[in-house]
């Protein structure tokens, strides 16, 4: 039995405590984690997907890390600065070694960035993070400069998405080589020793790690996609941690003395998208009058109707009754404290009478009919939420039918603007420009804007502010522009925000997990509980 440094000495004073320690250390050599979403590859640049990123973050590291509140902190780079508006300089951490013993240098960083756009068959690549960079300059082995054609304030944020690999190992490596562990060589505190695709990964402590020593000799990382089975595995003691705790089990687990919950407000907003594609004098596909006949106009183009639909929703009831408290009602994309949070925005209040008045004002005193669509296998309680909203909308006279579909069929149709109103979610990067650019900006291929703007919202004021902010190197000014853009879009009800999900993990007694708002379940965040 191997004891951890100082802690053992302090506790030998009392016999009882020593026994407790003995017990916790006996189990502390190995930990088993169960995650709900399968990891599809160990290649950190193959597929942009949260489960993959979580595992990549265990084996590999980034120049700029993010802490559990998604704030940028030094990672493989110790500091970074703007040399001139179009040049960023990163100082690299000295004495860092890869799992194979190779030293980490600027060459590895340059190689990694060059690899991003060149991963064959990637269904969702990381190329977007190297595209703004026109030239990489290696100043010395521990200093690297990135040249951009235009001022680019988001470069450090981009670097929080890029995991650095070893040039020597990965020079000719394919995704297969990473999956077979031959190329899965990083600088992280654990290294992968077993990989069974879609079933489990096993990590072993990397003893030459530069930072804090990994708490467990070995970590089993299992994938249990069925929610109830995952909870059952925790209750049966087969696993020490589960993520994506089903909300239906929360009340029960909170009462259980052998289980602790670790939770934090996340960065994922669940919201309703509305049809902005059809102009005001055309029919929206799933809106009719009360007799089921075409309405002849698209009521969703009227901001009063949108506001009424938003006011009709009792967000607190949804959070309490449907989400069992595992969310916070939202009036915008990001939670408080994140870059770009709009402080002076009116709360999304529940006011069914006001909603009815607004509807009458807009010319719909008797409401209309609408269908609300949504996925049933994507977001927490997605199909339950749309039913609850169906109840609430029907009560203000907007008679609502509800249809839920698997994501596979839903997302394509939503992307083709086939729906009038639909539920969807968005996991933001910790920067207000991210949702602004992808959800609320006018779709623009050349700028790469509006990639997930499935309702086709468009507002020139918002676009102008976003454009300014993307070239603004002064962080304070940039934040003001982002905030103003978001405030305008939210006041205009470009989407109807519902709630921001709380990320919840459950551990068995004797363990501790640092809840992250980016939803990543990383092995290094699990530790034996401090006593």
């Amino acid at each position: 039995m191997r004891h951890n440094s100082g802690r053992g000495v302090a506790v030998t004073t009392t016999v009882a405590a020593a026994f407790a320690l003995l017990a916790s250390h006996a189990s502390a050599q190995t930990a088993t984690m169960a995650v709900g979403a399968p990891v599809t590859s160990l290649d950190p640049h193959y597929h942009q997907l949260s489960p993959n990123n979580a595992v990549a973050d265990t084996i590999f590291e980034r120049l700029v890390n993010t802490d559990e509140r998604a704030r940028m902190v030094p990672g493989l780079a110790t500091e970074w600065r703007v040399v001139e508006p179009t040049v960023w300089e990163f100082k690299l951490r000295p004495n860092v070694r890869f799992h194979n013993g190779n030293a980490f240098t600027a060459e590895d960083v340059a190689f990694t960035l060059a690899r991003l756009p060149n991963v064959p068959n990637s269904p969702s690549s990381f190329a977007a993070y190297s595209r703004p960079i026109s030239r990489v300059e290696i100043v010395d082995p521990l200093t690297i400069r990135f040249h951009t054609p235009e001022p680019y304030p988001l470069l450090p944020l981009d670097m929080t998405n890029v995991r650095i690999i070893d040039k020597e190992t990965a020079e000719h490596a394919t995704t297969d080589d990473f999956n077979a562990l031959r190329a899965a060589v990083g600088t992280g505190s654990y290294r992968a020793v077993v990989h069974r695709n879609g079933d489990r990964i096993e990590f072993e402590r990397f003893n030459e790690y530069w930072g804090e020593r990994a708490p467990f000799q070995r970590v089993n990382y299992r994938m249990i996609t069925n929610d109830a089975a995952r909870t059952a595995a925790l209750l049966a003691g087969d696993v020490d941690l589960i993520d994506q705790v089903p909300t239906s089990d929360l009340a029960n687990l909170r009462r259980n003395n052998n289980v602790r919950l670790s939770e934090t407000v996340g960065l994922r907003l669940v919201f309703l998208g509305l049809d902005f594609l059809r102009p005001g004098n055309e029919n929206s596909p799933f809106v009719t009058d009360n007799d089921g006949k075409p309405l002849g106009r698209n009521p969703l183009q009227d901001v009063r109707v949108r506001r009424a639909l938003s006011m009709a929703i009792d967000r607190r009831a949804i959070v309490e009754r449907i989400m069992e408290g595992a969310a916070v009602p939202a009036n915008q994309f990001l939670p408080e404290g994140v870059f770009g949070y709009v402080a002076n925005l009116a709360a999304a209040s529940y006011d069914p009478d006001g909603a009815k008045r607004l509807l009458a004002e807009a010319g719909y005193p008797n409401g209309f009919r609408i269908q609300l669509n949504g996925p049933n296998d994507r977001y927490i309680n997605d199909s339950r939420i749309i039913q609850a909203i169906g109840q609430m909308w029907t009560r203000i006279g907007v008679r609502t039918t509800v249809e839920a579909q698997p994501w596979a069929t839903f997302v394509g149709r939503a992307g083709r603007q086939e729906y009038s109103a639909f539920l969807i979610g968005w996991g933001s990067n910790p920067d207000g420009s991210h949702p602004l650019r992808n959800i609320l900006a006018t779709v623009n291929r050349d700028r790469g804007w509006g990639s997930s703007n499935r309702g086709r919202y468009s507002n020139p004021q918002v676009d102008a502010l976003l454009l300014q902010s993307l070239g603004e190197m002064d962080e304070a000014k940039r934040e003001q522009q982002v905030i103003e853009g978001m405030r305008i879009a939210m006041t205009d009800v470009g989407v109807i925000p519902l709630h921001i999900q709380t990320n919840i993990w459950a551990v068995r007694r004797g363990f501790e997990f640092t809840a992250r708002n980016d939803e990543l379940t990383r092995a290094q965040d699990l530790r034996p509980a401090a006593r």
Partner: protein
Amino acid sequence: MTVYLVRRLIQALFVVLAMSVIVFVGVYAIGDPVEILISPDADQIERERAVRALGLDLPLWQQYLVFLTNAVQGDLGRSFVFNEPALKLILQRMPATLELAFGAMFLSIIIGLPLGLYAGLRPNSPASKTIMAGSILGFSLPTFWVGLMLIMVFAVQLGWLPSTGRGETCSVLGFVGLTSCSSGTQWSFLTLNGLSHMAMPALNLALFKISLVIRLTRAGVRETMLMDYVKFARAKGLSPSRVTFVHVFKNILIPVVTVVGLELGSTIAFSVVTESVFAWPGMGKLIIDSINVLDRPVIVAYLMIIVLLFITINLVVDLTYSMLDPRVRLESKA
């Protein structure tokens, strides 16, 4: 006989072709894999790159031709999701599903046959009535629900069995040495830990089959017992056990063999729910995950394998028929 086999083989080829066309069109109709796989903040340029990378920029018929050309050379394509050859992915998962399916078949026969035989021979005894009532439960309860109940009782409450997953595995060679459990095809029925992991999912998967075998056996026995030749055998003074096990048994085997054969295929093909409830890393879980993200190469390859499997099973069932029942002659079918 040879002519017969060759003809079946040619037919099989057509079935496989038809299958691949249906899947291509079907997956195309369901949705766009890129929409599902791509990061939501990917811009147009990245989307177009991904579409090209996955070969989805060509018209559907061209995509199909590319697939056919490669398939003839033994390449069924690479998974969109895992970027590994689809065939390799499936073969990796196959042992887990096979052992689960065979475990379930084994359970259904050793439990179902004797119970069915008993219920058929003594149709009016209370025990038989209980057996029949139990068998109704077996196929009326939804699999996912029973699965969770099993986990709750045997893993959470009693703690006798592990809740989910596939325990330690060994290759057949490893069994001899008991040490090299890391190479070769992995089977979990070779270790005690593996068996304990297998017990619940196998039983869950077997429940429906047990009921089926019980009912088929009972129905067969009741019918056969009234046949003239059985009466004659009895009248001749043969012992009841000889009548049961030689005369009756042989005759009820035909429907049982048909259905068990058929069910073996469907057990392998549809172990989806059990595998997902018990986090069993088999093909069923792979296919449902693949369907969810429209990973077409894996879906096509999987279905082709399953079709071949079914064709083989049906062939074997037909051959077994002709052996069990000389009245069915294969040649006569021409």
